[in-house]
């Protein structure tokens, strides 16, 4: 219900809106909805009809660990991304214009650079014989190289870096609309800086944090390249499991089941966000 309402905001002019949306709808139908339906069908028919693929996914401790890993990594990445993106977005808002424009351009440019190239760059920087370890050793902070790749640290660094723009942009949109004099008002009323942040700025920025956070979390759930290159097998994520099943084992039933579970989780989260925002819109 809420999805329909969001998709067709101008219900009075719904007819022409629908016609305009037709090309996109048909494209999605042909190249997304139907293939996904076929994948779902495979997940309950291969190698034989039944729910054995789902039972295997849910029942095995290995796959349970992969699911847990996936949510854990996505959660950590989202949390760290928020912590870094919030000050950046705030700084961009209060900074003098020319500087803000330069930094904004750098953030956007990083999004346009090839994902694989950026991930390989991190691999070279983070490995044991890489630049970061060599610098730390040469200035005497550590004796032994730190293990920064092929584990959770590598995945987290690489993914936070890639996700940052997706958090900064929605946050910026919301924070820019906040009237800075509101903070002065808070100070005049006797709020400390901390209180001004937690009781004024953060609540007002919550819609940005929520939509950016959800986007980052959902994108992280299905991420493949970065975990596969910077992570180890011990913290395998769901997308890698799907790739293994589809490409290496040619077991599309199992791959389809895992993909479908991921899709359901994602749609569920999306529904929660819609409801949350609808509720907020209503109170205004």
């Amino acid at each position, binding site marked *: 219900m809420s999805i329909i309402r969001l998709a067709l905001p101008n219900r009075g002019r719904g007819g022409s809106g629908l016609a305009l949306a037709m090309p996109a709808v048909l494209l999605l139908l042909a190249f997304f909805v139907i293939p996904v339906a076929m994948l779902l069908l495979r997940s309950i028919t291969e190698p034989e009809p039944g729910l054995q693929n789902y039972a295997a996914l849910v029942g095995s401790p*290995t796959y349970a660990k992969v699911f847990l890993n996936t949510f854990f990594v996505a959660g950590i990445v989202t949390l760290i991304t928020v912590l870094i993106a919030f000050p950046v977005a705030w700084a961009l808002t209060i900074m003098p214009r020319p500087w803000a424009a330069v930094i904004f351009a750098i953030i956007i440019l990083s999004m346009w650079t090839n994902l694989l190239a950026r991930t390989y760059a991190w691999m070279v920087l983070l490995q044991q014989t890489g630049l970061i370890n060599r610098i730390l050793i040469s200035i005497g902070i550590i004796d032994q190289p730190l293990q920064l790749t092929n584990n959770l640290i590598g995945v987290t660094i690489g993914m936070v870096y890639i996700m940052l723009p997706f958090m900064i942009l929605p946050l910026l949109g919301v924070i820019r609309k906040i009237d800075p004099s509101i903070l002065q008002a808070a100070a005049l009323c006797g709020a400390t800086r901390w209180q001004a942040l937690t009781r004024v700025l953060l609540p007002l920025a919550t819609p940005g944090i929520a939509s950016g956070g959800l986007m980052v979390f959902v994108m992280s759930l299905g991420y493949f390249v970065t975990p596969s290159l910077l992570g180890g097998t011990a913290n395998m994520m769901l997308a890698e499991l799907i790739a293994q099943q589809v490409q*290496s084992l040619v077991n599309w039933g199992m791959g389809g089941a895992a993909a479908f579970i991921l899709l359901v989780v994602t749609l569920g989260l999306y529904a929660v966000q819609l409801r949350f925002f609808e509720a907020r819109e209503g109170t205004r």
Partner: protein
Amino acid sequence: MKMKALVVAAALTLAGGAAQAQQMVFTSWGGTTQDAQTKYWAKPLTEATGIAVVQDGPTDYGKIKAMVEANAVSWDVADVEFDWALQAGQKGLLEPLDFTVIDRAHLDPRFVSDYAVGSFYYSFVLGYNSAAFPGEKPATLADLFDTKKFPGKRTFYKWSAPGVIEAALLADGVKPEDLYPLDMERAFAKLDTIKKDIIWWEGGAKSQQLLASGEAPIGFFWNGRVAALQADGMNIGISWDQNITAADALVVPKGTKNKEAAMRFIAAATAAKAQADFAADTGYAPINTGSAALMKPDVRATLPDQQNALQVNADMAYWAAHRDEIGNRWYAWQAR
């Protein structure tokens, strides 16, 4: 020279008329290996017959299955792992090969089946960065698993395939003749002893990067990749002790519209000279029994087929029969 070849190819194409102006697609794993396949297999075929060979890749078993099921096969010949080829043949994903076009008599019988012939064969070998081990050098598979004697990260092939499980069992003292059926639990127990020190390589380029940089100073590699590093003048050592052979295969996905061209491509690729030239360039062994005589002795000496005495052959038929089961257990163990 190149221009002339082009002109000749064009002339042949024109002379043959539209009916013979064939085009086919070959897919392989990229990198230096596919470059060599293009140079020594595809180009001579095009020059001799006018069949244009389009290169694609990387090979993806999921895609092959999808193409065959949808009856929309766009890869006419694929370079695949031999055990997958045997399994895919049984599952009906492949065209039977036409041995009136492909000369079976001169192919190593270890690498010929109704649906697949060898593309080249290779060995998994112990490779090490000599700078990391200034004293005693690693020599046996047991050394590969001995982190006290040879400390540091070690790198192994990530995907479920013949090689690493066999190596673990041999290192644990299993005799080569007792390897099959594979004792997976014993192999995992042995691998568990070094699991925290393993960095997995998923492709040849990464394996070279790990070894050359010293990120993983020791590991288990495709012999051709180690040979390439040595040829670049790097201080890399190799031990052939209990090198484990496996092979790639050339297959034709079922339902291709260019079956005739595909068979001719395979015939050209497995010919004695094509196999000899490819082997000399890549360090992988030829599967044509007539190739050896066409190669320089010093080049031949570096190939896996000169290491027969130290060699352990991975059992492709066993792998083909148990590929799914081994794969599921392998990935489950990795994620554990």
